[in-house]
């Protein structure tokens, strides 16, 4: 039976729960050995992503991409985090910031399956589309 990467990731997280550092080290070694025997170490980046996703689910963390034309102030990031928390019920929001000057202004927020595009680039593009259609 083929076991998915998510199952391996889940097994690891459940195994290390409430364990000491020494025990965790042993568990991780055994886990890596198992992966090697199944020839799954080549997919380590995907496995780590699964581990992180499962941990985020457990801790109710949401990782969001925030793209803007200029670096945003911490107060703005806090405001964005509050907004996402209200919408998702997450306890913690971790932002990955990106600067794209071509946006002109505003921001694009991407979290879970949601994209909130309030950039000037998109606004002007929508305006152009509206003028073209009418």
């Amino acid at each position: 039976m083929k076991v998915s990467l998510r199952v391996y990731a889940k097994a690891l997280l459940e195994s290390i729960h409430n364990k000491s550092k020494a025990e965790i080290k042993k568990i991780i070694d055994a886990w890596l050995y198992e992966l090697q025997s199944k020839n799954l170490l080549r997919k380590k980046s995907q496995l780590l992503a699964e581990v992180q996703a499962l941990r985020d689910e457990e801790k109710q963390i949401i990782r969001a991409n925030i793209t803007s034309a200029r670096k945003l102030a911490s107060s703005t990031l806090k405001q964005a985090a509050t907004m996402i928390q209200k919408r998702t019920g997450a306890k913690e929001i971790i932002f990955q910031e990106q600067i794209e000057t071509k946006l002109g202004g505003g921001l694009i927020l991407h979290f879970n399956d949601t994209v909130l595009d309030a950039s000037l680039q998109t606004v002007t593009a929508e305006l152009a589309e509206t003028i073209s259609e009418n």
Partner: protein
Amino acid sequence: MESLISTFHIDLSLLIAQMINFGVVFIVLYFLIFKPLFKTTGDRAARIEKSLEEAKEIEERLNKTKAEEAKLIQIAKQNAAKIIEAADKQAEQRKNELVEKAKEEIGTLINREKAKIQVEKAHALREIRGEVASLITLSWQKILGEKMNKQTDEKLVAKVLKQLN
């Protein structure tokens, strides 16, 4: 009787001889001339009569033929008139059909051209709108690019986030 004979010096034997001579001549003439002559005359009269009858019959036939000819001509004329009338009618119908078809074709052509013009117009309008939209977008981006700084951008982002809340 004897007195009469003596008065006129009639010789009985001579008279009888003459009578016999006359009879012989008569018989000879009758068989050799009169009879063939009467026959020829009779035949000729019969031929003439027959010819006259034939001529009459021919005349009658001619008259009859003339009448039939006239009748046939009349019928032919009537038929010709009917044919001409039918041909005229057909020609008129054909003409009407052709006119109708031509009208229809012209209508189709006009409609097609109208549709083509509409499409071209719509295309041109779309192009113009596209150009105008590009110009407006570029102007907007230029104006906003010039006006936008960190402070205004922060204000804008804050406003957007407030609206999303």
